[in-house]
């Protein structure tokens, strides 16, 4: 898990939106440009296979595999990706595991966006001692080795999906708070905000009608990048023994438990890693595409 959560903030350091496109260039439809279409469709496909396909497809259950058919190799009959050491079908574990990984990633980003985003916005807008206090609290979470907190929460509350989500939010809330604070700070002194303040609009209205819409593009691209980081960190948690509890499946815990047999059954690790790699690449590409489209640095 050495992919740094906080430093994606750096690539999202707020710079006033780049000037409009070159004079005379037609504005391309957002969806038509390749940077967004390709990763978008691949992600939709993945989501479809993980969430919808098992409903009507003939995918066996991810647990309770037949003990007689353990450690089948790739492309064996009935099990495209083979079976693991307890006989569960790897294909179904990838699909159900994908569900868990996507749910965790999405939930962590939403929590980070709402709580972290709000904190950052309030800190930037309020300024003064409130900002100092909020930022110090956030510094504590950032200075605190987040892995300790995550391990402790997961270890303390016992591994389960909800606890993992809360544990991983310990990463996302401070990161989002910093991004939103930086973005809000750069917007706060902009003429249109000062004008709104001069015209007597109440602070809350200013925050939500003026600041938030301008910060959203940046926060959304940041959350896409954050989602890919979260999936990787969730995997790291399993790797250290505190992630989603077996026999439940998630890509992270499949990789983690697979590595004990990597020299003998490498596919146990390779297949989920490829899916993980594909998803994170798509998320990053989508993030980049949107970022260049919305002109966010």
């Amino acid at each position, binding site marked *: 898990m050495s992919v740094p959560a906080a430093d994606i903030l750096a690539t999202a350091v707020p710079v006033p939106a780049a000037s409009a496109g070159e004079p005379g260039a037609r504005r391309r439809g957002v969806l038509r440009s390749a940077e967004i279409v390709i990763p978008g469709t691949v992600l939709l496909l993945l989501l479809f296979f993980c969430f919808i396909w098992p409903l009507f497809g003939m995918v066996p259950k991810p647990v309770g*595999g037949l*003990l007689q058919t353990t450690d089948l190799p790739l492309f064996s009959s009935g099990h495209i990706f083979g079976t693991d*050491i307890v006989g569960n079908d790897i294909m179904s574990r990838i699909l159900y595991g994908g569900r868990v990984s996507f749910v965790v990633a999405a939930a962590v980003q939403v929590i980070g966006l709402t709580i972290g985003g709000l904190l950052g916005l309030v800190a930037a807008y309020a300024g003064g001692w409130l900002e100092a206090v909020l930022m110090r609290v956030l510094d504590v979470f950032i200075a605190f080795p987040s892995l300790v907190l995550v391990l402790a929460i997961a*270890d303390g509350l*016992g591994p389960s999906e909800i606890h993992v989500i809360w544990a991983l939010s310990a990463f996302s809330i401070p990161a989002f708070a910093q991004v939103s604070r930086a973005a809000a700070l750069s917007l706060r002194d902009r003429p249109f905000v000062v004008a709104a303040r001069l015209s007597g609009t109440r602070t809350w209205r200013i925050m939500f009608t003026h600041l938030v819409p301008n910060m959203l593009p940046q926060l959304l691209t940041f959350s896409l990048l954050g989602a890919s980081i979260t999936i990787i960190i969730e995997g790291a948690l399993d790797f*250290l*023994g505190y992630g989603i509890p077996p*026999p439940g499946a998630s890509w992270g815990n499949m990789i983690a438990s697979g590595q*004990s047999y990597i020299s003998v059954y490498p596919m146990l690790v390779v297949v989920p890693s490829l899916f993980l790699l594909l998803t994170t690449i798509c998320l990053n590409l989508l993030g980049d595409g949107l970022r260049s489209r919305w002109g966010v640095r």
Partner: protein
Amino acid sequence: MTPKISFRPNTRKSALRLSSVLVATALAVSLAACGKSNSNSNTGASNAPKHGGSLTVLEGQGFAGNWPGLDPATDTDGAANMSYMDSIYGELFELTAGGKTTGDLATGYSFSDGGKTINITLRQGVKFSDGTPFNADAVVFNWKRDLTATCTCKPTFPPVQNTPPVITATGPYSLSIALKFVDAPFINALQGSVFNWIASPTAINKLGEKQFALTPVGAGPYTVVTDTPDSELVLKANPLYWEKAPDGSKLPYLKNLTFKSVAGDNQALTAMESGSAQAYEGISTPQLVPAFKAKFQVTAEPSTSPYNIQLNTKIPPFNNVKARQAIYYATNAALLDSSLFHDTYPVGQSFTAPAGLFYEQNVPGYITYDLNKAKALVQELGGLSFNLGTISVPTAISMNEAIQTEWQQAGMKVTLQSWDLTGLIGAFTGGKWEAMLQTAGAYDPGTGVGVCFRFCSTSPFTGVWDKKLDGMLLGAAGTTDQATRKSLYDQAAAYIAQNAYGPFLFPIAGYDVAAKGVGAPGLTSPLPVTDVNPEILWQYAYNNNNASA
């Protein structure tokens, strides 16, 4: 003996008894009472050991790979660190190939005062590696110090723990220890405990407790060069070592010996394949054994503690004997053995194992697998749903998953849970657990994580509170007469089966690996297991690949 494997950053075992709980899978070679030479022994390069080689040995991180300190008085991990302690301090009593406890630094022992007092005679003319003499006073000094250590990390030794014995030197090379009650397996239990290692008193007083733990001085075959706790221990041959090789030449064969902690079996495999290590003590992932076997000598450790499923008879659903019988009927140990471990374990019906004492494979009245009867019982009970727990070790977890599948076929609703060591202790002491996959039994059922540990009402980790069973088990440990111990243990096994207190599966133990041209008793040829891991006599270890002489 299997370390907690792979990356679970679990804690260091806190006591000898505990480590057998982590026993994962092994290839039990033969059913003979004491291990004969195993099938894939090192037939090839078993040429005579040469002097002067150097050997790097890997230790699994979850178990032996952690050693905060090597001072007998402050090393709670006694059993886990047996290899290091034996190499530095040697042993009073060691377990030889014949399965007999024989004297090493001690020469013999005898019981007196009805078994309550044990008299020990010591080898003469032995010196510590700092030149000071090894005598009865040194042993008494060490034993007293071990008992009165103030460090929070003081080791525990049950026979003497609650009732401090009287230890007196009865001569320059003889001493006696007076217990409050008769403890027949005392010498067997001594073998795996800190009392078996004697440190040089002068060195302790000179260096002080903290420094001594890092640079210990003993009378063993090696002395410490550098020690990075929990990572790397570099040793070199002790010039003053007393023991001679069978051909009269000086021991130890090796010039230097290094122990390195490794995160898991796979790391060990890659490390050995890349040549940065030549031996690995304790593989616990059976699926990797073929990969190791392809390039190295793999020796199965004799297995002494069978897996068993404990049922908590104090709370529902398993306070009802029918529910317990349903579990017996629904558990197909043979299928588990074949699907997960390719039919390599002798399925047994009692807490004893082929490599241990009093082995009894089939127990009269033991309920065997019958799916229909199991389903009928479950219907009769109106359904059965409970939680099955274990230690978070990959192999234990995958066994639980397989068991869950079997029981679900019988209509039971089973949820799985696993903890790290500290969490497991909390679960047991909390008393709310329903079913647990654990291990029971040891080389001598009376010691270590023996049968009483799992079935006597006095133990915090039992699921059974039955006075009659207590009587049998404590009685068996209370006499020194082997025949009566055997009959009492057989009665206990039958009683457990009759009351369906918890089915037994198969005994498991790890493997030891050594590169070709490397060997040591216990590493490449099996030695019986005391409590948890087999003892390796490092003074006889050799590595002919880089031996000079």
